[in-house]
């Protein structure tokens, strides 16, 4: 069963494609890495799946009745806002608590548990503005834990994060995979991908290769991806493939 099905999907900005005629499926319960050079359309693809960007053409079909969670690359999060780590993490309960729902003893226990799981115990009363980059990412992962989503989309979750924090957060990703959640992560570190991600999509605007990580991440494929032309051509003619 597929959690996400892409059919001839084109996503882009101002008619210029960033993801071009991409088709394929992400199986439910799979753990997929999306890799590729800068400007390859990795973040754009996640944005499209998360519903934050409408396709220029083609379609994205999401499995019905699944909860999605999306952690953008640099969350447009106002870190100067006077709020504590505890409250930031508690936002993950939105789906169950909503606007009025009470956060009772059971929920409070869950929040504490999530904060402990990312190693931030003792930080509950800290204003979010005082957190380091790595601590912030831990807090955002705690919020993801509480969201209890079936499909989790992570955009460069380990960028600018030290090795220990990366290892800790990767452990959570493995745990989600063990719980048969679907995880899709945009990553840059090929070694991490080889070690922890069974499935890989190598993207360079179009799919260079998609499947088992070992067969995707070959020297030949990586070279092909690197040759992608990044710049948009402002005089480009309309794409003819749509008409066909």
């Amino acid at each position, binding site marked *: 069963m597929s959690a996400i099905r892409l059919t001839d999907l084109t996503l882009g900005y101002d008619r210029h494609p960033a993801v071009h005629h991409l088709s394929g499926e992400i199986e439910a319960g799979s753990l997929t890495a999306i890799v590729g050079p800068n400007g390859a359309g990795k973040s754009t693809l996640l944005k499209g799946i*998360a519903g934050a960007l409408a396709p220029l053409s083609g379609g994205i079909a999401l499995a019905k009745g699944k909860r999605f*969670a999306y952690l953008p690359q640099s969350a447009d999060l106002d870190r100067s806002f006077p709020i504590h780590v505890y409250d*930031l993490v508690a*936002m993950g309960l*939105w789906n169950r608590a909503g606007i009025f729902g009470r956060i009772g003893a059971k929920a409070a226990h869950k929040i504490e548990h999530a904060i402990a799981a990312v190693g931030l115990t003792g930080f509950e009363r800290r204003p979010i503005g005082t957190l380091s980059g790595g601590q912030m990412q831990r807090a955002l992962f705690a919020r993801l834990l509480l969201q209890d989503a079936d499909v989790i989309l992570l955009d460069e979750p380990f960028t600018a994060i030290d090795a220990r924090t990366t290892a800790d957060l990767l452990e959570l990703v493995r745990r989600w995979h063990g719980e048969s959640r679907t995880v899709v992560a945009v990553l840059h570190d090929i070694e991490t991908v080889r070690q922890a991600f069974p499935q890989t999509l190598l993207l360079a605007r179009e799919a260079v290769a998609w499947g088992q990580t070992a067969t995707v991440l070959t020297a030949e494929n990586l070279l092909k991806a690197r040759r992608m032309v990044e710049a948009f051509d402002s005089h480009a003619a309309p794409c003819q493939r749509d008409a066909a």
Partner: protein
Amino acid sequence: MLYDLFIGPFAEFDFMRRALVGVAALAVSGAPIGVFLMLRRMSLTGDAMAHAILPGAALGYLVAGFSLPAMTIGGLAAGFAVALAAGAVARATVLKEDASLAAFYLISLALGVTIVSLRGSAIDLLHVLFGNVLALDDQVLLLLAGVATVSLLTLAALYRPLVLECVDPGFLRSVSRSGGIVHLSFLALVVLNLVAGFHALGTLLAVGMMMLPAAAARFWTADITRLLLLAAGFGMASGYAGLVVSYAAGSSLPAGPSIILAAGVIYLGSLLLGSQGGLARRLLPRAHLQR
């Protein structure tokens, strides 16, 4: 002696009691709204909105004379129109909220002034600009209390999504579609409070009652809940202090401006002494901790 200064005026005069109730109502709803305006980096929005409301209120005056309902409806209509248009443009185009708001409030202001001058009557806008807090009749008091009630109830209902929209709008968008509605309801509250405020303090000073207590409170706490309570407290304190000072100074000191000046004194004091980034803390650093 102390009684004469601090309590006497309110015990003795009905108009002082009305003024106190009026500013208390304004502070209780205006200051928390100011806190959210400040946290969303929309501190100047209140000012722009005040300008946008003015032509509507003036039009109401032209049509029906000095009538509370007409001026209120006119002000609300102009304010909502500008807020909706600015919000819609910000969400649908490349323009950010501040730019689209600037565009629409200027259009509204110009339009209003044009219509007024076309009618050829030189109406006295002084009352609308500076209000008269010492002449609140039952009608105005009911309006102020009603607006405060509606504002507080709405704020309570919207609290979670409103905070979420400030901290992490992307996250709210990913879990709920309420962002747009929350934003517009909040702007509606801003307009509502400004319209209520112009009857007591005048449009321009009403903005002061919103923003000054909020900015002052930020120097004392880094917790949103305390911030809201403290801002409302500061607002009420400045209302009371302003009235006392203005009464003690006789007729030489108008009440509206002295209320805002009192809020200004609280702001400057907080700026100097505040425990969260106040100037004194910066200039007189204490020894750093071991870890």
